[in-house]
């Protein structure tokens, strides 16, 4: 055990200061990691709202971002663990494939959009269109989410400890939504559904995975698709 601890401490964290280093240097370094290497710890300082920080990761690296980021942070993440010690601009973790992205602050619009896998945790609030067109990603938001969230969500889970804005889950497919607070309004074809024991177990797992220990699954309501808009039916024309 001592040996492994010593080894870890020898593995220097590579720090990129974006005040003095081009963003492309950081992202190139993240893209040229040989499989199996131990040199996988990165730190980013002075991100100052930069776009596309740590996008396209495809190895199990750890990236600690010290500050707030702009558009598309950790986009397309496949296996990395990215923590933003600040807030994130639009499109954080867009199209994530796998891995974990944690935002300590707030996230702007379309967080986790089109995500296919992995876990996105937002400790503050998320703005509009959170999880829009989600396709397998799990998203856990401690605060509130804005309007049109999970629009056309196909699969995956959106868990919200706070409130949801207008038109939650509009035109929803099979993404499962859990909201603890108020939902301002439900979108077309999204309905409240019964919370069965299997859903409570699922939600407990999701909360556990996101490190949320201070709320109980029983405090949430479940929302999902009424499945009436899957195929075009002329009688539903008004609902589209």
């Amino acid at each position, binding site marked *: 055990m001592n040996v492994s601890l010593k080894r870890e401490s020898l593995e220097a964290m590579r720090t990129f200061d974006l005040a003095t280093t081009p963003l492309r240097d950081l992202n190139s370094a993240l893209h040229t990691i040989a499989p199996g290497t131990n040199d996988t710890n990165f730190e980013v300082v002075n991100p100052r709202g930069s776009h596309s920080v740590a996008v396209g990761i495809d190895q199990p690296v750890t990236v600690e971002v010290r500050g707030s980021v702009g558009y598309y942070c950790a986009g397309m993440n496949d296996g990395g663990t990215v923590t933003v010690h600040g807030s994130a601009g639009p499109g954080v973790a867009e199209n994530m494939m796998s891995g974990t992205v944690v935002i300590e602050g707030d996230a*702007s619009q379309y967080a986790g959009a089109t995500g296919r896998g992995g876990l996105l945790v937002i400790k503050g609030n998320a703005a509009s269109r959170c999880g829009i067109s989600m396709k397998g990603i799990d998203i856990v938001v401690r605060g509130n989410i*804005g309007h049109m969230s999970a629009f056309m969500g196909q699969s995956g889970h959106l868990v919200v400890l706070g409130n949801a804005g207008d038109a939650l889950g509009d035109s929803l497919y099979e993404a499962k939504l859990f909201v603890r607070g108020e939902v301002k309004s439900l979108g077309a074809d999204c309905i409240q559904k019964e919370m069965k024991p299997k859903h409570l177990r699922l939600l407990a797992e999701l909360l556990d995975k996101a490190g949320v220990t201070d709320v109980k699954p029983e405090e949430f309501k479940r929302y999902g698709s009424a499945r009436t808009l899957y195929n075009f039916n002329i009688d539903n024309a008004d609902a589209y």
Partner: protein
Amino acid sequence: MCGIVGLFLKDKSLEPQLGAMLSDMLVIMTDRGPDSAGIAIYGAPADGRAKLTVQSAKPTTDFAGLEALLKAADASVTVELKSTHAVIETDAAQASVVRDLLAQERPDIRVMGSGDSVEIYKEVGLPKDVVSRFGIRAMGGTHGIGHTRMATESAVTTLGAHPFSTGADQCLVHNGSLSNHNNLRRELVREGMTFETQNDSEVAAAYLTAEMAKGKDLGEALTSALDDLDGFFTFVVGTKSGFGVVRDPIACKPAVMAETDQYIAFGSEYRALVNLPGIENARVWEPEPATVYFWDHEKAA
């Protein structure tokens, strides 16, 4: 896309730096729109004096002997030339006479803005070039707004650049596009408003001017705008003592705000705010859709 910024100072000690702070914010937003740029600065109004910011495509001929010419209407007139713009200061009581004389003698000169305190500078080109040709960094003031444009709705010209000013000490910058501006323009023309361009944002500015002329304050006018304007918008608006922000209900045009004891700041992106003093500890938030944010120096005092 477009980049918009705004800064409303609470701490008077920052006022000499307003132009420099706002310039930095705008230059960072350059990659959101390279077509044209503009800034409105609200300086300290002088008692009994009025300001007119004018622009000419041929400044060497249009501005030649301008001060002497206008002194015929008001002996106290001063004219400060700044590249393609000039700031004309007059006795407030004589302002309309001076303006009439200007329109008659120098018909090619365009009025960018007028009032007690606002000065508006805008041109085709990059923010860094626009702020340097007009010496914006050296300007002090209480609040200001700026815009860098990626044109969608009308031509790339000086007059099509933002901020748009359609009333005394009022101006507006817009990121987005309106869909009912032609209809609204017709209605406003019927009410007596005049328009310089075919631009949608000018209609938004004129709409707010018309609403405020009916006795509404800026906050109330912005609330009405949510009902009457159709399309995408994030607006930042200045009045003589006020500063307002509103986003349409869809809110797809980005917006970030920050507040400290010293200032209230707006940026299309957080990048625009990172050089502000104390930003690390500021309250930073994304303005809610269809929600009016409004501050006023006079109401606060």
